[in-house]
């Protein structure tokens, strides 16, 4: 028995018939072809599928599409506006907060929820907030920096650029 859902995704309205067991993540990926939201595990542990549902970070692999009826959804595809990256997206780029990029959308959506609740988190608060998201590439160091960058940026603070300290060191010597 299918259910009809009405959702708004990244500002666009959709009405669809969905099977009960269809997960929200598969609705987004397969039906709407918004493949920026990823699936990394079966147990609601890795956070790669995190999206915003009514402004709150949610693991879309642990939510049925049917449960999203009436919801306003934002995915990574909806973060940049008019071609301008969201401060978090910019922070991840500036601070090299991503490598393979697979966990990144989920990280950014979780961080968006964090900054909404706590615009100026400490390192510890950031690390705690990320406990539902695995990254296997970065060791998290630069993800924390990226989120701090975004927090600083939104309050108009000074942003320390990674390059500054790099220029002091010998980086390249031509082998003889």
């Amino acid at each position: 028995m299918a259910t009809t859902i009405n959702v708004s995704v990244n500002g666009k309205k959709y009405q669809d018939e969905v099977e009960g067991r269809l997960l929200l993540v598969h609705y987004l990926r397969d039906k709407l072809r918004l493949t920026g939201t990823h699936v990394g595990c079966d147990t609601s542990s890795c956070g790669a599928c995190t999206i915003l549902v009514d402004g709150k970070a949610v693991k879309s692999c642990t939510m049925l599409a049917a449960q999203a009826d009436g919801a306003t959804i934002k995915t990574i595809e909806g973060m940049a506006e008019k071609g301008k990256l969201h401060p978090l997206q910019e922070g991840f780029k500036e601070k090299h907060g991503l490598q393979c990029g697979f966990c990144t959308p989920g990280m950014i959506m979780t961080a968006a929820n964090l900054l909404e609740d706590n615009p100026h988190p400490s390192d510890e608060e950031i690390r705690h907030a990320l406990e539902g998201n695995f990254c296997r590439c970065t060791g998290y160091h630069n993800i924390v920096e990226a989120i701090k960058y975004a927090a600083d940026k939104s309050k108009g603070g000074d942003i320390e650029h990674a390059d500054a300290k790099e220029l002091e060191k010998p980086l390249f010597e031509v082998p003889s």
Partner: protein
Amino acid sequence: MVATSFDYQKATSVEQAISLLQSHDGDAKLLAGGHSLIPTMKLRLNSPALLIDVSKIEELRGIREEDGHIVIGAMTTHYEIASSDLLAKKAPMFVEAAKVIGDIQVRNKGTIGGSLAHADPAADWPAVVIASGAKIKIHGPDGARTVDADDFFTGFYTTAVGENDVLTSIHVPVPPKGSKSTYAKFPQPASRYALVGCAVQLTMDGNKVSDCSIGFTGVSDAAFRDSNAEAALKGKELSGESIQAAADACADGVDIMSDHFASEDYRKHLAGVFLKRALENLK
């Protein structure tokens, strides 16, 4: 990961949910936040024919004060509890515990009622509701009843909620003046469930403990109230000595769980450590 096929229905009232449960004869399950149920269904460890979504039933949501109790609707999310001013003021242990459940995403979607009805032996809420002396309200085909939190958890993943029942609200007595409460948890490193979780509520009379209740989760196949540890504290000053006595007395006579994260004796030891830490917090 695909669950077996099932029907999905949104219930608009508790009565409707109950009658749907009845008409499916054990083959329907209630869907709250879904954070315990959906993963099990994806793994096909469970395949109900119908999921009844009760998360949108208005009467099951919200936190309010009523007759000396704080009433928490079963469908209130962990996040809503964590950010409740009322609870922060009157029963801060709930706020404290809510903040260490799962992760941001889980807290946004998971509900206290769903968690209690699921009765994972390592979930956080059971210890807290026990220590708070809460009563749990259950609606069934024959009407409503309330069960003391102490009696609610009957065994491994089993509770006083029957097959055709709906857990509707949690009634937390507003602690008397001089009460203090806290929740101390040692998370299982992978899942972040409680390897051991200890909730304590104390009422002080001067410098003596006049009343106290202690709830443990993660230790045994169901959360439990630890009267031995309580006895070691009642009437005593909260001192290094009495705290140690309570820690020595705790988790006695219960079947202690064992897994690759913690063997029986280590878990028992941790129960003592976290009771101590909770009590130190309250000193």
